[in-house]
């Protein structure tokens, strides 16, 4: 029994100190902005590998999610003769919820895990130590550009997701199921509020982007520098990011729309 408490306590302490280290890492990350300003190239390279290479999966996923929304929405709405509200329904679901949330989940799986593995392997192969000995701070030089690239990419990716989702909904609703085209777009235009829907969605995706990239970068930097340690850290990145995104989504939704 005493052992149970002791190991519980040790686990709690370890988790807390890790959380502390994660927060302390934010200072050098922000400080790394100076390096990025001096050499924007660092950020541009990361924007490509973190952001641009994720566009395809986001676009395809967005299209399919929109198509499903079109189909399901039509089934429900047509029972009440409300097919004309399909455009609004599709767009609102995407912009408010599905766009930011699914983008963040896909980002954690595609880019977050890759970030963790890359940084973890750099640690395991002494590349980070090597940078330190060359008088280059790896937190500024390696972590910060990746962090800001993620922070910038996720909201943009969420926008792409939502746009293609709307397109998918329109293809199914307007194209296949014969909903009136004008009503589809009109309903969307009138129903969606710039502040309530679009801005809140953007705020969500900025928060998710921050959390996902922060977790990914920290897990890589904090991993045990062995192959097993890197693989565990990669798993943790995906699990922690997904849970954090879903939990935060509830909190943010309650604050914004509650």
């Amino acid at each position, binding site marked *: 029994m005493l052992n149970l408490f002791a190991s519980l306590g040790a686990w709690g302490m370890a988790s807390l100190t890790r959380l502390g280290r994660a927060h302390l890492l934010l200072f050098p990350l922000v400080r790394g902005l100076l390096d990025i300003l001096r050499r924007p190239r660092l950020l541009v390279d990361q924007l490509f590998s973190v952001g641009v290479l994720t566009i395809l999966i986001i676009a395809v996923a967005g299209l399919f999610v929109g198509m499903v929304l079109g189909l399901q929405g039509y089934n429900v709405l047509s029972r009440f003769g409300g097919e004309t509200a399909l455009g609004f329904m599709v767009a609102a679901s995407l912009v408010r919820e599905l766009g930011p949330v699914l983008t963040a989940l896909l980002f954690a799986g595609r880019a977050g895990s890759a970030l963790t593995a890359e940084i973890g392997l750099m640690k395991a*192969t002494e590349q980070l130590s*090597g940078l330190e*000995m060359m008088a280059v701070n790896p937190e500024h030089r390696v972590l910060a550009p990746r962090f800001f690239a993620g922070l910038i990419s996720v909201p943009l990716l969420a926008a792409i997701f939502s746009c293609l989702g709307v397109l998918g909904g329109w293809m199914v609703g307007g194209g296949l199921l014969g909903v009136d085209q004008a009503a589809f777009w009109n309903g969307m235009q009138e129903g969606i509020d710039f502040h309530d829907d679009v801005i809140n969605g953007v705020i969500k995706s900025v928060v998710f982007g921050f959390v996902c990239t922060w977790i990914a970068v920290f897990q890589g930097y904090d991993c045990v520098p062995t192959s097993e340690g890197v693989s565990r850290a990669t798993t943790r990145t995906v699990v922690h990011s997904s849970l954090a995104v879903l939990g935060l989504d509830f909190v943010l939704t309650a604050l914004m729309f509650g």
Partner: protein
Amino acid sequence: MQQSAKECGKPLVRIRGLRFRRGERWIFDGLDIDIPRDRITAIMGPSGTGKTTLLKLIGGQLVPDEGTVEVDGQNVHALSTAELYRLRMRMGMLFQSGALLTDLSVFDNVAFPLREHTRLTESMIRKLVLLKLEAVGLRGARDLMPSQLSGGMARRVALARAIALDPMMIMYDEPFTGQDPISMGVLVQLIRQLNDAAHLTSILVSHDVAETLQIADQVYVISDGRVVESGSPEELGEGGSDWTRQFINGLPDGPVPFHYPAPALSDDLLEGARC
């Protein structure tokens, strides 16, 4: 450099009463080492004695629990981050694995410290990089990626990178481990040449006895957190304690037993029979 002139007669690195702990275990327990200038000083000891740890303590990547490490008259662990980074620009370190940046080509790896720390033009950097690569015999390999290099070549590239900023000293972490006899010979010769041509101070950490004794000017042997033997290679070869003789000559049994501590074999076997 004025400081160097003032400190000229003194050793470049001076370690006093160094104690360092990993968990419950004292890796170093009162270590005193002097590294003289312009020489090759070898630090030898069995695997796991903390040779890599010692280099990281000298480079300021780890902080000792007690004791001081002075490099060129500066206490490494009392420096501010900016001062420490300035000091590190004058130290080169060759990691066991080479630690090349895997996303950069050989050329860009060697150019990396120059691009980070100097304002030289690209054409100037190109000349310097080619000269450094020439010194290690790999000018022709400049467009390869680190994954395309053999272990020995990777270490030579790392060496070129370590001397890119013309440091005052280089620390070599097990440069010979896992090398075939030819690359071993190449590295031995390179380390000696670099040391003599560029007035470098070299710290060579290794457990490859023959190669190390061949080029070192002075040797420290450490075991169990202390210096157990020091002197020139000749002195070490002649006399020394039983332990040193076992280590230098690679005898399987001696003060360091072949067997990990265990109960007598007969007891162990009988135990199994009884169950």
